[in-house]
């Protein structure tokens, strides 16, 4: 079992003829993902790695029954791509693109929240259900199936922690990367209920970082969850007022400090270790 994607997901790739789109289409297919269509305006009728290319998402969905879209288009076209995916009615749109202007995402996220589509990202690595399906750019070789649900704001730090879990035999239901932007399509509070409802997820690992108050908001929700959560927060030693790579990773106006997040999570019984290497042991304890 899993959340959001599984072996039956039918994936389309927006921007499939671009360098990233083509590379990751091959990677996703090699992992076993059913990539059923690609979209690049003006290149309909071509094929990439045998996947048929369409001019619009609506055409691709109609012809192939795709229900998940992954977006690999440049920042200036990505807001439109997200809206196009939602308009075509996919269940999940995963926006990998980094560097989309914040005000564009304010409008896109507000609109997509009124539709049936769930938006993940931008600036996210995507998600993976081990052994079944990967959508996005997460490496497939670091995950194994198992009972841990994982949701994270960062990419490579997540890989770091996931590969430790895997090495210690702690497999995952689904790993979800929500991305490092200030206005993400999915926040922790949007994804945690999915793991709470998934019968195969026994423990949830949440990887946050400085900036914003999504971790504090998540703590409020975790209070009501039946499943245990283990958290990690990066950027404890980052100075205020400095944007640490991710557009969303900044402490400003006294908000978004690691300390406030650790306090909020600890207050609801979530362990937040100082070092990421302690995560697997804490997960194992909670699996019983």
């Amino acid at each position: 079992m899993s959340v959001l994607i599984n072996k039956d997901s039918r994936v389309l790739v927006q921007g499939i003829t671009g360098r990233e789109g083509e590379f990751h289409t091959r990677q996703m297919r090699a992992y076993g993902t059913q990539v059923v269509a690609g979209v690049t305006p003006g290149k309909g009728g071509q094929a990439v790695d045998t996947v048929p290319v369409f001019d619009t998402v609506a055409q691709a969905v109609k012809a192939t029954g795709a229900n998940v879209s992954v977006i690999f288009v440049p920042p200036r076209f990505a807001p439109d791509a997200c809206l196009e995916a939602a308009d075509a009615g996919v269940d999940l749109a995963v926006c990998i693109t980094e560097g989309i202007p914040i005000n564009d995402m304010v409008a896109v996220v507000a609109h997509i929240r009124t539709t049936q589509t769930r938006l993940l990202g931008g600036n996210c690595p995507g998600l993976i259900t081990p052994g079944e399906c990967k959508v996005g750019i997460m490496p497939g070789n670091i995950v194994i199936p198992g009972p841990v649900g994982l949701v994270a704001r960062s990419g490579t730090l997540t890989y770091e922690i996931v590969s430790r879990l895997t090495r210690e035999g702690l497999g995952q239901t689904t790993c979800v990367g929500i991305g490092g932007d200030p206005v993400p399509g999915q926040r922790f509070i949007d994804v945690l209920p999915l793991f709470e409802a998934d019968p195969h997820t026994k423990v949830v690992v949440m990887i946050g970082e400085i900036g914003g108050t999504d971790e504090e908001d998540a703590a409020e929700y975790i209070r009501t969850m039946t499943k245990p959560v283990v958290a990690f927060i990066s950027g404890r030693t980052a100075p205020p007022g400095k944007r640490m790579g991710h557009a969303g990773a900044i402490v400003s106006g006294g908000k978004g400090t690691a300390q406030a997040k650790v306090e909020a999570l600890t207050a609801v019984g979530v362990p937040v270790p100082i070092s990421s290497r302690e995560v697997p042991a804490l997960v194992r304890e909670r699996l019983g």
Partner: protein
Amino acid sequence: MKIHEYQAKQVLARYGVPVPAGEVATTPAEVRAIAEKLGKRVVVKSQVHVGGRGKAGGIKLADTPDEAEAVASRILGMDIKGLTVEKVLVEEALNIAREYYLGITLDRGAQRNVLMVSAAGGVDIEEVAAETPEKIARVLIDPALGLRDYQIRDACYAAGLDREAIAGAGKFLKALYQTYIDMDCSLAEINPLVLTAEGTLIAADGKINIDDNAMYRHADLADLAEEGQDNPLEAEAHRRGLQYVYLGGDIGIIGNGAGLVMGTLDEVKDAGGTPANFLDIGGGAKAEVVASALELVLMDPNVKGVLFNIFGGITRGDEVARGIIAGSARLNIQVPIVVRLTGTNEAEGRALLAQTTLVPAETMQEAAAKIVELARAA
């Protein structure tokens, strides 16, 4: 990206916001000439990208051109929170009756932009927000509808603005919102909006931060982007297209992925070291990117050692190692370098590193401990 007060005022003026008459200067003689031209009492304001300029002595009134010149000679070159004052704004002084705060920024929790109005203007709004949040009226803006007139009235009345200011404040708020949207701001503030003794409203100070992600829509601001970097190393990083933050310590940190680099800074600090910088080189580790990153980090004379932390992911560990070896070979390196890499073929990667002067490490924690030790010995 931050821009200076005088630049923010130029932008706001384009949107019809009244601002005091004034000009920017870089020498006391220029300041004198501007004061003479204005022909009245002036205020000389340091142009640096930090708050609290007044408290630091970086804003002074002057009654005469002589006095303006004297004041400017003290302010120019002054250090305010680590930044040297290179420019001052010389403006007509206002007869201040009341001071208000107007601002628009992103409310991340609500995922919307928020309009903020307060009758407690002229002071650090973050202090007001922390100590007396009830003094700031907040209204969330629907991106599809924009800022509506009734919302402006709601905010102004809720904030308790004086009646004689409310009618006029609407024009300022509309202009501020238009600026915020057109210029892709992450913050647009008028603080204070001054109600003068003569009964007119004027923006005595303005602050605009522009979303770095939107700079492609503002090619005309490219020069400001360079100038917006306060630290010379950060400015150089900007030129090289690298995500670098100067942190002031002695251990250079290079990694791929913001979260991983932040996690590495934390580990180095826990190991007893002090990071010199944050530097995210993004996916993979191509030799030219590694060389450019390493060269940048070593421009900081305080750096006594460098730690690479690369998660291979889809890129193979041996490829990463080759990139780092080739990149570092291009430079004459005098400090120890520890390399921690993981991913497919990580053992092969470490074996390649072992044949060089680079020091391989298996885990992030081991790597942090090693570089702290080596930097200390150096």
